[in-house]
Structures are given as structure tokens and as C-alpha cells.
């Protein structure tokens, strides 16, 4: 929690455009960003990096976002890791599914940069 240490955010999305945009926005706000293209990759990245926040898409190949959240929450080390779902699907069903598996919150895309930063600040300082 050293303020001088950059917080590291993992963005998980099968769309390169989305990853680039999240990454660019958050780097501009002083965060470190690592990327993964699906849930399986994300688990690998988290295995190799200490991340402070995960922002994940839901609908992805190989391993979807809900499975990723479930897998992370099943690991003691990640029980309190903030996880935001980033998705275009704004319906309540997805949100409650996300909530049920342990998501911290969600952002609906298309997001605007300020909104993204403010939500990220809210969940990881």
C-alpha cells in the first residue's frame, strides 16, 4: 500500500482494442497495466505477477470471465482481490451472476476514461 509503488491492474479482454484502451487510460492515470486475452491467460499472468486489480471481460474464448472470477475467488490469496467485470452486457442477470461468483463491481463499455479511472480508484485506491 505504499503510495509511491504503482498499483498493477490486469486487463482481461479478447479484444485487443479494448485492452489497449483500458491499458492506455489507466497508464495515463499512473497505474501499471498487464494484459491477458482470456481467463486462462489471466490466471497465468496473475501467477507470475502481483496484481492489485483485475478488470475482466465476460464473454471470452477458452475461459470466460465468470469462470475466471470463480477460479480466483477459490484461491485464498485472491479472496479479497478487487475484480471488476467490464462488459457491454448491462443486464441485471449478468450483474447478479457476477456478484454471485464474487465480482467486486462492474463497468459497462463503452466506458469513458474518467469513469474508468474513478471506478478503479474506488476499488483499489
Amino acid at each position, binding site marked *: 500500500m505504499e503510495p509511491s509503488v504503482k498499483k498493477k491492474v490486469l486487463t482481461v479482454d479478447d*479484444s485487443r482494442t479494448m485492452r489497449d484502451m483500458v491499458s492506455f487510460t489507466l497508464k495515463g492515470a499512473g497505474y501499471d497495466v498487464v494484459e491477458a486475452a482470456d481467463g486462462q491467460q489471466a*490466471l497465468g499472468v496473475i501467477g507470475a505477477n502481483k496484481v492489485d486489480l483485475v478488470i475482466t471481460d465476460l*464473454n471470452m474464448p477458452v475461459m470466460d470471465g465468470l469462470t475466471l472470477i470463480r477460479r480466483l475467488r477459490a484461491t485464498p490469496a485472491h479472496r*479479497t482481490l478487487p475484480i471488476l467485470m467490464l462488459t457491454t452486457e*448491462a443486464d441485471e442477470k449478468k450483474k447478479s451472476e457476477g456478484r454471485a461468483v464474487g*465480482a467486486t463491481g462492474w463497468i*459497462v463499455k463503452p466506458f469513458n476514461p474518467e469513469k474508468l479511472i474513478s*471506478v478503479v*480508484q474506488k476499488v483499489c485506491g
Partner: protein
Amino acid sequence: MEDLSRFKQTYFDESAELLEVAESGLLRLTPGEVDSDEVNAIFRAVHSIKGGGGAFGFTELVAFAHEFETVMDGVRNNTVPVTTELVDTLIRANDLLGQMLAYAREGDPAPAGTTDGTVAALRRHLSGGAPQAPAPAAAPAAPPPTPVYADDEDDEAGLFGDAMAAIAAARAEEDPVPPGKLRWTIVFRPRSDLLMSGNEPAFMLRALRRLGDATVECHTDALPNLQNLEAELLHLSWTVTLIADADVDLDKINDVFEFVADDCDIRITAEAPPPAAPEAPPPVTDPVPVAAAVPSAVAVTIPEASPKAPGAETPKAEAARPRPNGGGAEHAGLTSHTIRVDLDKIDRLVNMVGEMVITQAMIAEHVRELPPGEFQELLEGLEQLAQHTRELRESVMSIRAQPVSSVFSRMPRLVRECAATTGKEVQLVTSGETTEVDKTVVENLVDPLTHMIRNSIDHGLEGPEERERVGKPRAGTVHLSAQHRSGRIVIEITDDGRGINRPKVLSKAIEKGLVQPGATLSDEEIDNLIFLPGFSTADQVSNLSGRGVGMDVVRRNITSLGGRIGVYSTPGEGSRFVLSLPLTLAVLDGMVISVGEERFVLPLTNIVESLRPKAADLHGLVGKCDVMMARGEYVRLVYLHQLFGIPGAVADPTRALVVLVETEDGSRLGLVVDEVLGQQQVVIKSLEANFRRLDGVAAATILGDGRVALILDVAGLREMSRHMDSRAPRPPVAALPAPALEPV
């Protein structure tokens, strides 16, 4: 938003890839056998295009993508049946999506009504496939772009659950609120398991602090004694007094708690300064006290999932190396870190590596003259440099390498269209799509492959009835394959059609004056007539092929890439076209040989071995070429000095060297040379670009001593030597009886 506009290029590039993904998925979508992974992939592609489009404000595009996506969603949920008609509509929708992307890229609005027809068609499928849709679809005049998608936009981030606990708590305030400000009192009592969703109250308090002047009071009354303390549970609650500007409204404060509203008891009250601010927001009295506060004392006793003290366990688990997830995942995570680089930069790099290879060859040339046994360290250093140069070259080349799948993936569509136009039934089978080859080669494959596949369907395959008559399945098969073979990429297009009609080809060639009447040609020679300029066998010029600009253009394209093309046909059983191309167009590993004063380079991949034949191994065939017995096999000898007219070369094979080379089709040739000078990487300089094409020569290069050497094309040499047989004077050993039984 303008910050994000820099990602437009990425977006368009990615969308182009996604369109291809969707298209190839759609082409594989067959009524009756729906692969849900496939459907999901198509859905995701459209979904991603829509998502990105939304970020850049391409509303028309997004509205259309939404329609498309809705139908795909229906297919995904089995509510929209997959019919041939649906697939056609979806393919059209995919094309239109590509057009919409093009408009968006140019910044032009799409012409009015561009999407109307397709949207109507899409909606017809949504309404259960009924031919005429009821009310909503029957309104093509009013395209409803934005409203359809509005559901996604109004709610950029939100709360779990819909209830906001905000109760007016009467709290007498003695301090006056400064004018123009509001005093908020926020009582925040989270449930004890709040941390388990990854939420952290400290950050929320900080977020409140960003809204104004906050005083935080912490309540520790629910704190259990030490031995009952669970590190992952929360026992604190807070009261925050926030003095904020009037523009901070309830929404902004609620926003702070958006993710935890269901897990907390939150009461928010506002108090305006007594006299001023007549238009201050009305006091907040949302009276719904949902999420009744769970008493913290109760929560503490909730048994934890893990019986051990989790606080002690956490760091250890984090440090533990082997993770439960798959072993390859960590590497997979790294592969996603890609960058997009301008091709020019890579080409510059390739060029530099080329120059470096030449420089290195030059140094090696000079070092060869040093007295042996001296400068040992220098030599070792140079050896390392050589190795690093090789690795650098391979790394740089691998940057440019691409799988041929980008070309292959275009073919299903082509086949579908050709099949429709010709009324034939065609099944395309592809294999080896992941074979990698230089980007330039990949790009230049599109046209030849397109033409050849058209040709196979149009000329090769029979119609379904004719096929049935000859006992073949109604649907013809075209097989497209790629593989690496001896340092080149070999692409084959095989069809199970009628094969090349040799009598017809021959008479056509005679008719066009390409062959002398009465000439006797071998089957192979007749087959190869189709590559002659101006040759076309189609009785009538069809839309697909048969304009007579076909196979000769294909062949020219392929040879200009340093490739070769061959055809093998069996009447009644089908034809096979074989393309062989170099993997890279920049550098090759070669063997430098000398013939007289000349230097040549032989591609290393062609070389089998080099040997000095004994007289007993050599045989002359009467009226034909010389052959040599090598490893139990007769090999045709080619005298390079004769072929290229080089004086002063060693003409007697028993005093010269024979380099055994192998062509792609496996046939061998013995090249008679003076000396083999050494192996070296050479930079390929195109002869066509700098001089002109020469038979038997693939390209040129610059050697370490600065002289130009020609890179030999082995298959070309074989062709040349065949022609030489009939014309050239007999080589010196031609007089040898065959077989010579001379003791050595």
C-alpha cells in the same frame, strides 16, 4: 474520448480480423449441425466490433452490429433456427458490417437506408423464421438505430442490486454549514464479509474525501476480542461528515458505494445552510431502508470457509510457485504482449541484417588469410559473431513470418461462390494452415490461389450428375494444403475431378499455334501446356475463369517470388497443382562454389553431398546426357561451365567435384564444379529488380570480397540441361562405355 481516438487504427485492424473470423465461422455454419463454440466465436466477433465501435461513437455501425448480434444471440440460445437462408443473411450482414466499418474509417456517414434491407432480413429470422414479421420488422421506413442500443448506454457503471439505502437520519447539527455548501452525513456500516468481494472500505472513504471536506469517525464497538478476530472479516463502521459543494449530489455520493449497496447499511442525509441556497437540492429522504444492517456481532461468529487463520495463510499461498492452473498458462500470458510495428521498420531491420551478413562474410574472408594458429581469440570471437548473426537473422525473419491461414481462410467463401455460380457441389478441405512463411509470400499467394481454386472448380470438377454417372460422390473435393519441405513451403491444390483432358489441351495448343502440328509430346509436357501464355481450354468464357489470362499469370506470379509450379494429372481421377516457394525472400544459407573464375551460390537446402567421382562411376548414355552412379542410383550430370559458357573450368568430372543436389520433387542432379569454397549466409538480391531474369538462376548476391555471385536455381538447371542434351556437343566423358568396368 478524443484520448481514445488513437486506438481507432487498432480497432479497425482488429475488426478486419474479427470479420474474417465471423465469415469463416458463418461459412462453416451448416443447418442441422450447429457447433456452439463456433457460434460463440461469431457472436464474440460481432460483439467486440460493436463494443469498440461504441467507444468511438460510431452509432450507425453500433446500431447495425446490435441487430446482427441479436440474431447471433438467438442462434446461440437456439431460439433462431439455423437455415441456409439464415446463413446467407448472416453472411450478407457480415459483409455489410465490413462496409459500415469502412464508412466509419473514412469518417463518412453511411448512405441513408444502407442497412435497412439487411436489418429487415435479420429481424425476420428473429421472429421465429416466420416469412413475414409482425409489427416491429414491418417498419423498414423507420430504421430505429439508437433506441435499440440505448439499453447499453444509460448505465455505465452501477450497483449490485437496485436498492439504495438512504434514510434521513435526524442528527442535530450545531455547526453552521458554510454558505453555498451542503453538509452530508453518511453512516456506513458494511457487512462483515464485504472484503470477500474485493471491496475495500478505506478506498471508499478516500473517494468520499475527494468529494469535499470529510471528517471520518470510526466505530469500533463491534470489534471482537483478539482471539476471536478473523483477519478477513470486517468489524468496523464509520460515520462521515462531508462538507461539499452544491454540485455534489446524492448520485455522486451513492456512486462511491455503488458496488456495495447490497452489502452495507448506508444512511445518507443532507443539510443545507440555514438561510442561503434557496435552490439547494431537496433533503434526501429516500425512505427505503433495504439491506437491514446485519449486526456485526453476529457476523463475527459466521464460520470461515478456511479453518486456519487466513491472515497467516495468504502470503504463503501467494508465494507458492506451482499454481493450480495449467502449466502453459504463464507463458500464454506473456504471448499476449504484442506490439504493432510499421512494416517499413522491420524491412529496414531485415536490410541491416543483410548488410551485416555481408560484412561478416567479408571479415571471414580476410581472416582466412591469417597464419593458422595465431589470433585464436579473434577467431573465436568471429565464430561467435557468426553464430549471433545467424540467430539475429532468424529472429528478424520470424518477425515477418505469418501463417498461411490468412490466405487459406479466404478460400471457403470463394469455393461457396464458385459452387453457386457453376451449379457444382464442392467441398473444400484445408490442412497445414499454421505453416508459416514470410509476409510478402503470404500476400502474394492470394491471387494465384484464388485463380487456381477457381480453375479447379470450373475446369477440374464435374457437375453432380456427371459425377454420379462415373460413380463418384456428387460433391467434388478440393484439397488445399501447405507444408514445409526442405526449407521451402509447398502448397498443393488437389481436386478429384476429371483430370486434364490431354487431347483437348493438345489440339487447343496446336490451334493456337503454341505447338507444331504433329509434334509428339509426353503427358507431362501436354499437362504443362496450360501454363503457356494465352492458353485457355474453356469452350466458353465463363465468369469464373477461362479468360485465357489464367495459369500463365499464376506461373509468372509464382516464379517472381522465386517459386515453381507443377501439375500432375490423372485422367478421370483429378489433378494436383504443386507450388513451391521460398520461406523468405531476403537471406539464404548457401554453399559457394567456383567454376573457372566464376563464383556461384547453391542453396544449402538443395545440397545432398559433394563427391569426386571415380571414372568407374561415370557413364554416358548414348544420345543423352552423362550419368553418374552415386549411392546406388544413377544421377544426371550437369556441367555448369557448359551451361553458362565459362572458360577455363575443370571439365573432367574425375578431377572436378560433383555436387549432388535435390529438387523439391525429389529428383537428383549432379552439378560438376571446380571447387566447393565454403558455406555462408548470403543476402538475396533480386536479379529481376536489378538486371533481368536468367534461366537457371534464382537471384544474385554480393560475396565478402565484393564480387557478385549468382544463386543457382536447381530445378531451373535441370530444365536447362534437358534442352542442352539435344543441342550441346557431347561432354568429354560421353565416350565412356556404359557401364565401365574399370578397376580403380
